[in-house]
């Protein structure tokens, strides 16, 4: 409904993606001097994050992103993140990419739902940007790109009315409707119920600008307050202490959008979805073409602005597994419920030949890795690990 939603959606989901990748890379981290050729080091991790962040905040790409436009489907947006995730030497199998996207979307859905005011989604975005700047402290060029995006956000969203923010919030919630994937960190922290729904607390501080419920004020003809009574409202709210900062630097107050992952907490997702709502989901995808015409246009435009460094030459791609073992990853790929499949876009199935060619050209540089074949000459880190395990 609001044509100003995409930048917020993209940046926050991107931020969550970086949190997960950072955590997984740290978890598989080996000190540089002790690492074998096939293991991730601190240097590798920093390089991956640098590459992804600089692609995300590329000026041409940001220009396309900030144009007023409608939100497209989760499927279409997933394609953009597939490409982004492969903007570095890192490679992800489809099962890991699925899991990554699940974690990203559920995290941001949670943040949007729990925002006290619709405007606070901007603070959540700033929290993500603050953390992103932490990942690339040593790279002044990329830092400058992020600050520039910050400036753009302030310019566009700084003066939006409460009504416009409410519309952005509603647009985001429509995008996340019917997603109930259970995330282990959320379950353990009791912010998500076992049925996949988030806990909405009825206690704590009220949003900035809202009064604690429970007061009735009566006024006379002259507009003077003449009586004040109370009523029992049922919650346990307190007044808000202070407002979060919307400047480049400052105390955001809100914790939503900060990094909730740490190296010691592996994050799993549970794949059983409630079947009731899925009938409606499949009803919407009746057209044989998986992507509507306008979505293809959107993808071509957006990804045309992405500058991906070609990983040519002797440097191989390093595979990252979002699961604990390769078997788990393979099992996840096979057992993912049909309804939750993101149906990675089959470009050949589109009917529009011209658009198909242009999109295929853009996508040409980028492949989703299939399960790597075991060969003696394989130099990718994941390949060697797989080969080693097979020989055991």
């Amino acid at each position, binding site marked *: *409904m*609001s*044509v*100003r939603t995409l930048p917020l959606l993209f940046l926050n989901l991107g931020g969550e993606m970086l949190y997960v990748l950072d955590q997984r890379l740290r978890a598989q981290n080996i000190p540089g001097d002790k690492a074998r050729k096939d293991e991730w080091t601190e240097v590798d991790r920093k390089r991956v994050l640098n590459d992804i962040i600089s692609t995300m905040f590329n000026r041409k790409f940001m220009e396309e992103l900030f144009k*007023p436009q*409608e939100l497209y489907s989760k499927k279409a947006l997933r394609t953009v993140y597939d490409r982004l995730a492969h903007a570095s030497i890192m490679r992800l199998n489809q099962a890991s990419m699925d899991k990554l996207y699940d974690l990203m979307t559920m995290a941001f859905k949670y943040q949007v*739902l729990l925002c*006290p005011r*619709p405007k606070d989604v901007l603070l959540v975005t700033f929290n993500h940007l603050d953390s992103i700047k932490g990942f690339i402290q040593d790279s002044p060029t990329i830092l400058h790109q992020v600050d520039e995006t910050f400036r753009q956000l302030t310019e566009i969203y700084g003066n939006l*009315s*409460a*009504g*416009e923010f*409410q*519309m952005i*919030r*509603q647009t985001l*919630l*429509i995008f996340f*409707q*019917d997603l*109930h994937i259970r995330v282990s960190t959320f379950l353990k922290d009791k912010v998500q*119920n076992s049925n996949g*729904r*988030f*806990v*909405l607390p*009825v206690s704590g501080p*009220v*949003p900035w*600008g*809202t*009064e*604690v*419920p*429970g*007061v*009735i*004020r*009566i*006024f*006379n003809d002259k*507009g003077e307050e003449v009586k004040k009574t109370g*009523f*029992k*409202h*049922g*919650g346990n*709210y307190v007044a808000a202490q202070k407002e979060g900062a919307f400047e480049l630097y400052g105390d955001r107050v809100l914790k939503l959008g900060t990094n909730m992952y740490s190296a010691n907490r592996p994050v799993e997702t549970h794949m059983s979805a409630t079947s*009731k*709502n899925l*009938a*409606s989901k499949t*009803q*919407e995808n009746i*057209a044989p*073409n998986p992507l*509507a*015409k*306008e979505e293809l246009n959107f993808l071509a435009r957006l990804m045309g602005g992405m500058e991906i460094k070609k990983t040519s030459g002797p440097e191989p791609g390093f595979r990252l597994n979002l699961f604990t073992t390769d078997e788990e990853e393979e099992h996840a790929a096979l057992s993912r419920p049909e309804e939750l499949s993101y149906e990675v876009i089959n470009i050949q199935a589109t009917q529009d030949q011209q658009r198909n060619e242009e999109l295929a050209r853009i996508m040409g540089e980028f492949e989703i890795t299939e399960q790597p074949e075991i060969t003696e000459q394989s130099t990718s880190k994941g390949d060697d690990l797989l080969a080693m395990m097979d020989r055991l």
Partner: protein
Amino acid sequence: MYRRERSIPLRGSAAALSNNLSVLQLPASDLMHFGVVHGPSAQILSSAPGGMPLAQRQLQVKVGVGVSPPLITQVHWCVLPFRVLLVLTSHRRIQMYESDGSLMVYWHALDSGDASSAQTLFARGIAASVHFICVGTWSGRILVFDIPAKGTNIVLNEELAGHQTPITDIATERAQGQDGVADMVTADDSGVLCVWRSGTVFTLLTRIPGFGVPCPSVQLWQGMVAAGYGNGQVRLYDATTGALHVQISAHARTICALDLAPEVGKLLSAAEDTFVHIWKLSRNPESGSIEVEHCHGECVSDTQLCGARFCDPSGCSFAVTGYDLAEILRFSSV
């Protein structure tokens, strides 16, 4: 006191919109009809008194081949003197159907006018006023359609100017002691309220300024305007003078729906904070000032509510919808 009754299952979950529940109960029939917006489709269903669902239908707005159906903003029944029409507002269009949704009798494409690229065209806010149906738009303009007693000869009669930001909700009430005249209140995203008198030409009676917060839902009863705001407040104004009489810190999040039980003056407020509250409105016979009393509060755990309606004119029962919830929750008094 109210107790939970059996829920009515929905084919699709309710979308995070305001005023996302419409209820129709015709005096001659035992059946209750419900309308809920899912997203690009709206679901209309009828149920027996016990809550058992009987028939259901899904409506969409089809704008062309290969183009995905636009998002629906609201679905609402309009009870007119000689007929009942079901009105659906969406991005780009307004569609009107026979009351069971079986036949579309009229559609209207929204005019882009002087919209900039940063604006989406949509209609939102639906109410019946005597033999007119009034629908709000993204520009703040209100379209007034003249509805014949039967047939499809519906005509756009007038466009009312009074708001500068998107309309959120419209409410109407028959003017006291006068036949064929109704009062109407319209609300918008900046919190401005306009009170109108209907007729062959609508006249603006009062304008109540906003205070920087949207007003998603509004009701009108016996010369009182009840408005629910984005900061959780419910305010009661005198419709003639526009004076603020009562201000309630009712909720901790934005209010999503208000409804009235006209026989007894009960007001229902539902908000994104998971709470529903019921209030009793009255007028002090001596001073004429508006008074309010809190009757009941209900917490629908972990559910961001998006719609709420009384199911009968004396407020003995009510129903609510919530974001991501694929059922209509019902409550009735004990």
